[in-house]
């Protein structure tokens, strides 16, 4: 299934709960303030890298650009545009937004 996180990792526990819940083979899409988790040197870098062994991680490019962090995305994070966002939703049978 697809997990969507839209909150920054140090602001809420959404990412932590998501990563602890997500099962191998699932996918995580980071949007809005959630994209800060996908940046070099942020506090969630370690756990996100660890999760990448089990789940595919995506981040919305427009949200990275808006925040000035598109040039510091972690290796292994796949960037998607809004069309890619829609594709991810349709490719997975279910979707959980960790609001």
């Amino acid at each position, binding site marked *: 299934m697809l997990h969507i996180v839209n909150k920054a990792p*140090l602001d809420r526990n959404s990412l932590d709960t998501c990563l602890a819940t997500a099962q191998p083979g699932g996918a995580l899409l980071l949007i809005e303030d959630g994209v800060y988790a996908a940046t070099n040197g942020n506090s969630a870098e370690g756990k996100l890298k660890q999760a990448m062994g089990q789940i595919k991680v995506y981040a919305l490019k427009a949200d990275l650009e808006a925040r000035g962090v598109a040039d*510091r995305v972690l290796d292994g994070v796949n960037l998607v545009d809004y069309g890619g966002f829609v594709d991810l939703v349709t490719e997975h049978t279910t979707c959980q937004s960790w609001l």
Partner: protein
Amino acid sequence: MSEGQIKKFMYVNRKAPHGTIYALESLEVVLIAAAFDQDVSLAFMDDGVYQLKKGWNTKGIEMKSFQPTYRALDDYDINKLYVEKEALDARGLTIDDMCVPVEVLSRAEIGKLMETQDVVLSF
């Protein structure tokens, strides 16, 4: 506000720029206080440090970038901008990532500055 009296105002910004309206609203209020010639300082703590991360390109999210407003603050004689060191460290950021000149202070140092204010406004 009584005539001629200058108070010390500190605006404490703790939210990332686009996910909520707080950052933009804070800027609006900062500019109002500046118009009244008050002693204004801005503190950026926690995710608030992201407000000053340079290089926003908001075209993709179809929002107006208000980053230029931070650069205009100096024109309103607002030049006391303090950024929390611990917050930068936790986010992999440095003073070189900031879009305006700032002073980097520890939480404790910001706390001491807060104690010297007449008014503290939270965003």
